Every structure is written in C-alpha cells, then in structure tokens.
C-alpha cells in the first residue's frame, strides 16, 4: 500500500491564546509516542495550532490496518492533552478549555471514524469565521492545507508569521518609515488571527509628547507595532493585524485608533 498522509483536526470555540502552543506541542509528542507504540512508521509528525483549531499532520504513514489503528489512537491522544484551565462541556467527561465543535480525521482519502468530546469524526470543517458558516468537505488529507488557505485560514504558525513579517515589511517600504516588529508582539498575534491582515493607522500628534518607552508600552499592550523614523523617533502611526478579510479597512483603522487614543488619554 502506498503511504498516505494522516490528518486530525479539532475545531473549537476561540481558545485562550496562551494554551494553543503548548497543546500543539503535546499533540506532536503524544502522536509520536502512540504511533511508535502501534508500530506505525511515518515520514514526519507535525502539529499546528490557531485560535480555533489544533491540527496533527503525519506524512507518509504506513502500517497494518491503518484506519482501525488510528481510530483507536486519535481519541486516546486527545484525552491525554493537559490544560491549566479546562472543563467538561458535554457528558462524555472530555475536558477542554472551550467547547469542541468539530473533529476531522482522515488517512489519505479514507475517513478515520471515532468519537470524542461527544462528537463523531467526519471529513468536514469550517473556513474562516468572517466568511460565514460555510462547511468545507475534504476529499483527502493531502488537500487539507490548500483547502483551508482558500478559505482564509493559514493553519501553520510558520505561514502566519511569514505573512505578518512580509506585510510589515511591505507597509514599511510604502511609508518609508520603520515598523518595530517586536518579536513578543508578533508571538501574541500568532494565536489571535487565523488569517492576519495588516492595518495601518495613526494617532493624534499630541501623544508624541509622552515618554517614548511609555508610548511603546501602550502600543504593545494592544498588540500594535510602533512606527519610527531612521533615527528611532516615534511617529504618530502604528501597524496592527486584524483577522480575516480586508473589507472595511477604514472601520478597523478608526476603531483601532479610538482604542489606542482612549488608552493614551487615561495615562496622559
């Protein structure tokens, strides 16, 4: 049998940003353990997380009775995930930080059927929430990342980070000013948006009278990126990310500006 890829996706209500990275790491470790225990060989095991999903992806998996084995392994992996804050949302006793809304599990083009969190696994998922409640049906595991990208979800952390960095660089070139791409802020943004779209906005000149580090602190607390000139002097602009489509950019720019200015008014 030709080796096929294996996919498990858990779709949930928006998750606390702090728990996703650790959950994805656990998912990867537990999957490697369980696969080895069941005698499944695979090319690679990776796990990814967004604010709404946890994804396990193993490439080129071979072994006997694959679908049967995976349908035993998947619920076990999910039940072994640990969280600082979690509760039971349905009678099965499965605990999770927020309610689980969908399970997608495929081996190549075959459905891996199991039950967990009071749900049965299927071959459908959802795209970005801003696009409405459209269901996506997956023909095979191998089509997962492309299908989700078309539905405005960048599943891989690398992909989102790359998109954010590229957007900040492009905006910086356009403005002929530097955007301070603070790594910690980028890390926070990583689990706040499934499809980060850049927003450039500004604030009233008068706030530049505030101590620069204070101003930077307020901007970063809102996950905004300060903008400065070649000499590092702050400018009355900032960059930020919204989640999803780029319609109504003006609304978002105005809202972000109002959120920032009200915070700055409180401290000045």
């Amino acid at each position, binding site marked *: 049998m030709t080796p096929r890829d294996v996919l498990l996706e858990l779709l949930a209500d928006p998750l*606390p940003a702090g728990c996703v990275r650790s959950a994805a790491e656990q998912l990867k470790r537990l999957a490697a353990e369980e696969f080895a225990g069941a005698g499944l060989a695979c090319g690679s095991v990776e796990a990814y997380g967004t604010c709404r999903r946890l994804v396990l992806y193993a490439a080129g998996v071979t072994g006997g009775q694959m679908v049967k084995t995976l349908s035993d392994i998947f619920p076990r992996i999910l039940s072994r995930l640990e969280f600082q804050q979690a509760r039971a949302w349905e009678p099965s006793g499965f605990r999770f930080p*927020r309610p689980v809304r969908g399970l997608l599990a495929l081996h190549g083009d075959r459905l891996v059927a199991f039950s967990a969190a009071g749900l049965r696994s299927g071959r459908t998922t959802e795209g970005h929430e801003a696009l409405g409640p459209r269901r996506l049906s997956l023909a095979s595991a191998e089509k997962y990342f492309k299908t989700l990208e078309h539905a405005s979800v960048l599943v891989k952390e690398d992909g989102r980070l790359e998109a954010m960095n590229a957007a900040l660089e492009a905006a910086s070139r356009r403005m002929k000013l530097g955007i301070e791409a603070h790594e910690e802020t980028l890390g926070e943004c990583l689990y706040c948006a499934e499809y980060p779209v850049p927003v450039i906005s500004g604030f009233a000149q008068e706030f530049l009278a505030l101590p620069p580090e204070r101003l930077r602190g307020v901007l970063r607390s809102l996950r905004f990126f300060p903008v400065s000139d070649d000499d590092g002097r702050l400018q009355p602009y900032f960059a930020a990310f*919204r989640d999803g489509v780029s*319609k109504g950019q003006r609304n978002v720019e*105005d*809202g*972000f500006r109002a*959120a*920032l200015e009200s915070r700055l008014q409180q401290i000045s």
Partner: protein
Amino acid sequence: MDFQDIILKLDRYWAKQGCALLPPGGAVRRAPGGQLCLAGAAGCAALPPDGLEGRYRYRVVLDPAPAGVRRVFLDSLRAAGLDRSEHDVRWLAFDGEAGTGWEILLDGLPLARFIYLPAPAGAGFRPAAAEIVTGLERLALVSQRKKRAADLCWSRRLTYGELHGGEGQ
C-alpha cells in the same frame, strides 16, 4: 437604523430563537433543572463597571447554550445592521470565577461579553449556560456609522444626546 429600532430588531431576533423577552427588573425564578432562555434591553442610571461603553445593555441568557451559540450571536449583530465582513471581530478569552468566556472586541473596541456560566455544584453533569451582554451604544455607533454617542439617532425625531442631557459628546 435608529437606536430604538436596534432594540426592536434584537427583541424580534431573540424571540425567534425562542427567548422570552423580559422587561428590565423582571425577577425570574426558574423551576429546578428547567431550561431558560431570556433576552431584553436594559438601561442603568450609573455607568455599569463591566468594561463596555455606555449605559444601555442587551442581555441574553441561554440555558443550556446551543452548540451554535456563537454563530447565533453573530447573526444577531447582523439583524442589528452590522455587516460582520466589514469589521474585525476578536474573541479575547478569559477564565475567571464568574465563568469562562470572551470579551468581544469590534475593531479593537469592547462590544460585548460572552460568558459560559460555571456549572452548578453537584447533581452530575449539566450543559453550560451562556450569558451574552452587548453594549448597545457601541453597536449603534457602528450600525449608524457615527463617532459620538450624542449623535446617535434614538428615534426619528430625537438623538441620544437630546435624550440624555448632551451626554456622549
């Protein structure tokens, strides 16, 4: 859409979802273990310290919360004249003693609080109840594309500012 129309649209929307519309101050005592589904607008004399803007709130209680409750909430915003695709909606998670939920930011500004209430102690598993409180001023500002609450149209003849002694400038 006038401020009062937003309330009327939300009332109609939530009534269609099976909610009982409750005038402010109504004290509901439910049968033990019974289901509950309530909705209604309320005003506060003092500005409520809930992190939302303004003095008017639209409160919905769904017990138990249906699986699609977040989508039902997003659709209620559409009923109130807000096009979701033209805005950034963020769900900032919090976990506290009062429950588990989100502060919902619309274009970076607080719009609503969505809470799954803590499970009552004992007596086995009960599905979570949800409470959603929306700041009506913020919703109306976006729906009417206004910058200041005072400029909001309350009814065809009156603005929010005229009704509240110029508040919201």
